[in-house]
């Protein structure tokens, strides 16, 4: 129990279609880590019987909506939770069909790690490439490729080695730092939580061991100090009459009391007086902590401003190069004005130019067809009404991401990564 309080949090995403064993794998992780409750299992058993299935279908555990269970498809991202004595895990389980790129992008946006499932009989296929490309675009720091259904290829090392070589060849074109491979059988539990006796040629870790031990503390940017102000706290009570605090979640770097800081876009400079929390002032704070900063000087700061260090500033951009994933049934319209959200800042934006469409199966850039539809990814240039204080997405996911909102319907129509 004491161990529980120093556990870390790992968020990972899984993508896959009905038959590659994704649900079985998630079911296996939940089941073997004792995260499925008896009444949940009972309910799934009953539903399986009602549907006339011979075996308990663990996919029913992950499909939450009535329509999903009836149609046997996953419509939307579902979040699952489990914990081992080492870590707590959040799974963003996303459907794998081609039309659901938007869900995959959503699940990937907050993940530390992506599980890519490959069927050992089929090897690297279009869907494998699509998932890996999206994981790379979204800068998920770690990829774990699970070569599943090893039982159906006689647990053959040659089959596994061939798939690893194929994937590595393809992955050399991607922007991923950390790729690992595990040969598994989700159905039988080989190398998922327990080591397989049938694959003694495999000397690496089981999937669970990898999930529990992969190094994630440097997934956050602790170098470039960025503090987007969410709101200003002014208690106006007798006790805190002159208190003026800037509330926010650190988007990058480490802030210390006494640090010289610069406020953007105004350009005012000051010093950090204190870093406040409910339990009192602390000496330093780092991403992704939520804190309240007070400064030595009374400067005019409001929501949307950013507190940084003067020797390390974000870019101030009004012409923004972005890789955009279109999420809405209505495609982008030229000259249309969208509301753009970036950190705690908001501006109007227009798509000035569509440079190319990216084929998420091949990485091919299509510069001729610029008709962008739902689930497509394109490189665009945006023009905003006021400057964004931004970093490249590659450098910082928090200060490098934007969404576009349709002002008529209020829907979130696109997600963008600043280049």
């Amino acid at each position, binding site marked *: *129990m004491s161990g*529980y*309080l*120093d*556990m*870390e*949090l790992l968020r990972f995403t899984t993508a896959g279609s009905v038959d590659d064993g994704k649900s079985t794998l998630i079911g296996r992780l939940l089941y073997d880590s004792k995260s499925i*409750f008896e*009444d*949940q299992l009972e*309910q799934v058993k009953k539903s399986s019987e009602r549907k006339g299935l011979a075996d308990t279908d663990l996919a029913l555990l992950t*499909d*939450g*909506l009535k329509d999903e*269970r009836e149609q046997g498809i996953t*419509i*939307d*991202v*579902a*979040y*699952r*939770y489990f*914990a081992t004595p080492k*870590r*707590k895990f959040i799974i963003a389980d996303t459907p794998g069909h081609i039309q659901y790129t938007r869900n995959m*992008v*959503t699940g990937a*946006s*907050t993940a530390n790690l992506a599980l890519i499932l490959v069927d050992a009989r089929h090897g690297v296929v279009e869907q494998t490439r699509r998932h890996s490309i999206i994981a790379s675009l979204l800068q998920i720091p770690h990829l774990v490729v699970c070569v599943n259904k090893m039982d159906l290829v006689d647990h053959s090392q040659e089959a596994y080695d061939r798939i690893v070589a194929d994937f590595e060849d393809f992955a050399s074109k991607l922007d991923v730092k950390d790729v690992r491979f595990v040969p598994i059988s989700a159905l039988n539990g080989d190398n998922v939580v327990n080591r397989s006796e049938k694959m003694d040629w495999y000397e690496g870790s089981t999937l669970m061991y990898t999930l529990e031990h992969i190094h994630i*503390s440097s997934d956050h940017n602790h170098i470039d100090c960025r503090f987007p102000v*969410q*709101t200003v*706290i*002014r*208690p*106006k*009570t007798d006790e*805190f009459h002159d208190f003026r*605090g800037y*509330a*926010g*979640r650190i988007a990058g770097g*480490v802030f210390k009391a006494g640090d010289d800081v610069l406020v953007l876009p105004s350009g005012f400079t000051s010093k950090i007086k204190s870093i*406040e929390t*409910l339990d009192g002032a602390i000496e330093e704070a780092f991403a*992704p*902590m*939520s804190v*309240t900063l007070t400064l030595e000087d009374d400067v005019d700061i409001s929501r949307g401003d950013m507190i940084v260090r003067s020797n390390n500033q974000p870019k101030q951009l009004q012409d923004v190069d972005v890789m955009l994933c279109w999420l809405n049934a209505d495609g982008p319209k030229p000259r249309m004005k969208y*509301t753009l959200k970036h950190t*705690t800042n908001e501006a109007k934006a227009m798509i000035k130019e569509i440079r190319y469409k990216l084929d998420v199966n091949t990485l091919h850039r299509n510069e001729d067809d610029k008709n962008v539809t739902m689930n497509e990814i394109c490189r665009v240039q945006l023009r905003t009404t006021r400057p964004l204080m931004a970093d490249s997405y590659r450098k910082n996911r*928090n200060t490098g*991401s*934007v*969404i576009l*909102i349709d002002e008529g319907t*209020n*829907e*979130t129509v696109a*997600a963008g990564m600043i280049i």
Partner: protein
Amino acid sequence: MSSYNLTHIKELEAESIYVIREVFAQFENPAILFSGGKDSIVLTHLARTAFHPAKIPFPLVHIDTGHNFPETMKFRDDLVEKLGARLVVGSVQKSIDDGMAAEEKGKSANRNAIQTVTLLDTIEENNFDACMGGARRDEEKARAKERFFSHRDEFGQWDPKNQRPELWNLFNAKHHHGEHFRVFPISNWTEMDIWQYILLENIDIPSLYFAHERQVIRRSNTWLPVSDHIQIQDKEKIVTKKIRFRTLGDITITGGDESNADTLTKIVEEVASARQTERGNREDDKRSETSMEDRKKEGYF
């Protein structure tokens, strides 16, 4: 570098505080839905943390079915006083008296479903454009599909198949007049996280969560508390048991478990070894496989 590491509880706390501050910044008139249960208590504690040293800037909204545990009501009033917060009470009895809602009939009749009428009325009357709730995604499969910022149409309805995509930590609160949002800042917490946090922060909770002696009857595989609001059948026997409640809803539908866990540490140990989900004892969820989804679409919590 490795010293810049948050524990999972602290990371969840940071995420929730961020969401609560976004609610404050992006809405005109937000509120906290407060049931007196542990999740809304933790949510309220997080809201306090988010705005310290200022007072909590949201009213607490309690939908009062009239079928409460007396302990919950006292806890609510004490907390409101301690926080100096505004309390808004929506009365289900009043909705019934006004003819807006009809009492359920039958053996296990309760006021769970008709709360929705009162809730939506209270939201409309007070012009709340965002109501934060303590629902968690691990609780129930329909809740596993919820966004942090969950849009409701002018009838308060949820359209689960047509939700706005939610990426990174960029929350879209745009809405037309008359629509509102439900926001779930503790979406990513599990029951275990909640108890660990209560233990860690030493947060006050109603005595009902600790093992205590109580008069109960056996119904639907659980121990239901004896109260003025329950009709006891001839064959049902009143017994005294040492029980505790894992969740708190109306006194008519909340079943207890036999337990000796009378301290927070013991509760944490009990939760860690539990083999049943916490809502397994909730009569309201047992009605059908999709009862939560159906109620949520109508505007339930």
